[in-house]
């Protein structure tokens, strides 16, 4: 055996199910990356692939500056939802969240209400994932399919158009979001969350915010408030409370 075959990405199946000619994503799209990795996790078992359909299909979100002056201003933006049927009546729901807002983004975009709501509704497996950590994401999708009952996965997918950054930083920004604890990766199996990736040294939130141009209007006071909120949420998660 070739010694180079030992690198982990080569253990994944090389066959593609999310074909590049079937989508019209922009270059460096985080959603396309997340969907591709999800399909890579699913493609081991063909029955899973057959039951997948888009509850809310993903489309290019328009940033506030582009929409101004059109009718779409008042329209609510909904994140893309992929629903996969398991055997029986249960299903796996995957949300591809690109934090699209039609107005100027406020600090409220960092709050993720969906995972907590899913836990409250009695979903058996709830997790957050990011395509910057591909093996973590693939693991979670497989575990969500294998667990009994409904499961929900929230995937943060950076959007170069909406967040206003260069397309080559898509993966890096997702990594910064996790390292600065703005989007901690955890999974909830029996009511209490467990951090799957716990960095010993957490980045300041400022570094994540300054990478993107959509937060240019934030002032220092707001950033400090965000930092305090993120810290309290993260210590809560470390103690095992949602």
């Amino acid at each position, binding site marked *: 055996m070739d010694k180079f075959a030992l690198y982990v990405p080569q253990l994944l199946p090389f066959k593609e199910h999310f074909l590049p*000619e079937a989508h019209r994503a922009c270059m460096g799209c985080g959603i396309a990356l997340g969907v591709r990795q999800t399909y890579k996790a699913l493609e081991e078992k063909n029955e899973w692939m057959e039951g997948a359909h888009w509850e809310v299909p993903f489309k290019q979100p328009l940033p506030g500056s582009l929409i101004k002056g059109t009718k779409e201003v008042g329209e609510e933006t909904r994140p893309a939802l992929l629903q996969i049927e398991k055997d029986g009546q249960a299903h796996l729901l995957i949300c591809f969240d690109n934090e699209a807002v039609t107005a100027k983004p406020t600090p409220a975009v960092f709050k993720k209400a969906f995972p907590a709501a899913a836990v409250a509704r009695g979903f058996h497996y709830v997790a957050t994932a990011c395509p910057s950590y591909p093996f973590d994401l693939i693991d979670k999708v497989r575990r969500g399919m294998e667990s009994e009952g409904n499961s929900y996965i929230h995937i943060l997918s950076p959007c170069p158009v909406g967040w206003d950054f260069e397309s080559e930083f898509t*993966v*890096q920004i997702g990594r910064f979001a996790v390292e600065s604890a703005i989007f901690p990766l955890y999974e909830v199996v029996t009511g209490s969350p467990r951090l799957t990736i716990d960095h010993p040294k957490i980045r300041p939130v400022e570094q994540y915010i300054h990478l993107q141009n959509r937060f240019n209007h934030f002032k220092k006071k707001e950033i400090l408030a965000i930092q305090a909120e993120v810290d309290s949420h993260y210590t809560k998660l470390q103690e095992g409370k949602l």
Partner: protein
Amino acid sequence: MAKKIPAAKTRGKHTWKDTKVGCVLLEEGKAKPFEPGEKPLLVPLWDKEMCVRCGLCYLFCPDAAIKRSDDGYYEATLDYCKGCGICHQECWFGAISMMEEA
């Protein structure tokens, strides 16, 4: 479940008179018959001396454009590459450089 819109029976006979106001696409799979995209400005090129064949570029490509060739090295299919530069940014060994296509 979302409503499924049946595919157009008259594909090919579609003229400008049939387009909806605002050129809205009402059918699924409209992009399939076309060659995807125009050619990108910058294209990834691999330096085979520095490449260790780890496959990170392949894993992080959103468009599934990077494929493994028979000798274990990776190559981009330029039909699908949009030139986003994620592979260049994520390569640990600096083996990928974005160049103008010759």
